[in-house]
């Protein structure tokens, strides 16, 4: 049993995922490795642009995309060969918040359904009253008022409200890890801060780790923790957010950092256009 606690709760080991065959095959992930320890609660930012493979890595860890080679492990066990009861526990411990707050709800049902399903499946409450209390507590944890959202249909709520309901649902389950795949990119700016703060609170107050997938380096900087930069299916740089963002080792990371527009007009891009070209060449970025 002591070996169990030293296992990371979630891990990718040299995971490679290839779509299609032959000359038209695309390598979505190439030997990607990442680990989320059981404790202390950790926040890992997975940063990359389109085509970097970050979403594929997330889906592999969520059991939605079996890797072509390499392994995706939960508590040391292969996610894709779990028994039914093991899988139930896996699903209890590893939860997700997806990108699209519109598509995540089945338009047929009221939003309550997402709570009802998990309460029932994971036996989170033993009586109706207890269930109601749990739902209300979860909504309040994400600053939603229960009467504002319960009993409504998804189209009656805003994107930010819907995403918070997803977080409330995760809160109910008290998972070990939340995989947030571009959870804020379809939300308004003001709401993004609210969602990120909830994830930070989850980490500090509930000990929940987050794997935060994003293309927004500023968000990664805000969340802190660790960072993994991906490009065209490969991990090009890993480390703590502070280290990597102040002292990037990889040219591509440097290129990304140099390109972020700052909301401060006085803080213009530091590299000149010609230096940027040099960086682009070094990073092997073709004429954009």
């Amino acid at each position: 049993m002591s070996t169990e606690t030293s296992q990371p709760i979630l891990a990718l080991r040299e995971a490679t995922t290839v779509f299609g065959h032959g000359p038209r095959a695309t390598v979505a992930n190439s030997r990607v490795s990442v680990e989320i320890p059981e404790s202390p609660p950790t926040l890992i930012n997975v940063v990359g642009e389109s085509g970097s493979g970050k979403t594929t890595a997330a889906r592999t860890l969520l059991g939605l995309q079996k890797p072509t080679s390499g392994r995706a492990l939960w508590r040391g066990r292969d996610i894709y060969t779990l028994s039914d009861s093991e899988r139930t526990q896996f699903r209890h411990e590893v939860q997700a918040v997806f990108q699209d707050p519109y598509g995540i709800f089945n338009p047929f049902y009221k939003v309550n359904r997402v709570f009802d399903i998990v309460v029932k499946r994971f036996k989170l409450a033993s009586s109706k009253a207890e269930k109601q209390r749990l739902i209300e507590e979860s909504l309040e944890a994400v600053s939603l008022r229960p009467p504002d959202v319960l009993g409504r249909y998804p189209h009656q709520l805003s994107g930010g409200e819907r995403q918070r309901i997803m977080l409330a649902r995760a809160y109910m389950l008290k998972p070990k890890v939340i995989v947030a795949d571009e959870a804020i990119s379809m939300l308004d700016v003001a709401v993004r801060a609210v969602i990120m703060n909830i994830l930070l609170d989850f980490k500090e107050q509930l000990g929940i780790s987050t794997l935060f997938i994003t293309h927004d380096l500023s968000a990664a900087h805000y969340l802190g923790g660790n960072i993994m930069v991906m490009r065209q299916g490969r991990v090009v740089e890993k480390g703590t957010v502070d280290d990597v963002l102040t002292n990037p080792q990889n040219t591509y990371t440097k290129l990304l950092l140099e390109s972020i527009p700052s909301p401060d007009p006085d803080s213009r891009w530091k590299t000149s256009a010609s230096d940027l070209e040099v960086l682009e060449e070094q990073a092997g970025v073709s004429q954009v």
Partner: protein
Amino acid sequence: MTLQEIGASLAGSQGEADTPAKQHLMQIRDLDIHFRSDDGGLARVVDGATLTVGRNEIVGIAGESGSGKTTLVEAILQIVRFPNRETHGQVLFSTRAGKQVDLMQASDREMQRLRLDEISYIPQGSMNSLNPVVRVGDQIVDGMVAHGTNARQAKRRVTELLDRVGLEPKVARLYPHELSGGMKQRVIIAIAISMEPSLIIADEPTTALDVNVQRRIIEMLARLRDEMKVSIVMVSHDMAVHAQLVDRVAIMYAGQIIETGAVRPIVRTPMHPYTFGLMAAIPSIDKPRTRLDGIRGSTPSPRNWPAGCRFHNRCPNAMPICTSVPPLLAPVTPGVRQTVSGEIEVHSGREVACHLYEESTPDDARVGEGAR
């Protein structure tokens, strides 16, 4: 006189209404765009928008989803005509010939001539609307030919246009699917400048592009303004892009323009509580890692704007008057002023619609002050 003009003359500053129209490339005046639904309800998607665009400047229109910014630019160009659309107000555009045309009253033929020739439009996601079966060079030519350019002349210009947007001549022979997102966007911009318009309207031109590509596009747009003496209206929800690109910015909330001015003071020392909340919610690598505040509540819907100031139910500085009297967008008196950003030095050219600043409050609504 409109209320705004009254406010401007009372405040003593040179209101926009005084400046001779010839100086402005485009003046949006009190523009309303409402949609009437089948059950009789009215969605007031844009209300009373007033904005001027000068020559050779980049003006940003900033706002989140539901602010009305895309509807505003679409309506200016008469791009979409929904049934049940009701519009009031004017959009005065100074043509190359020296005439002033109200775009809202212009005929279809006039609009067709103006589009591309004098006003170019780059809609959101337009890089995906290139014809997939035509080489991009030919698509550039097609645009010009449709506006009366001789085909041979048009073909000659393609290389020059591609160079302007930082693409190699050989790109002309490629098909859209052979280009990256950034390259496609540049082709769209090349088409947009092909007739040398005086105004380009771009809706979210950098969204969905990789961040390094975004920087290139932003720098290119600034360069175009300098080289071609063209004005650009850029619509975006990304304040950082505004901060790095535009000269002036107009902030929209709930269908109304609530703050305008040079980008630097607006972004660094905003006066409107919404702008303040917005800027405070943006993470940035330059900022220290302290907790960001969001803006509580959510954007209201156009069928049901709140009474009075549309932001009042989310505003941390709301006062009783805010719940009943809509504030006016009015020029702010220059000088040292007390604002939500603390005590700041205000220069002329800023406008704000907020009861915290007395210019925005109509005379008859001022309590205990008496009309000036």
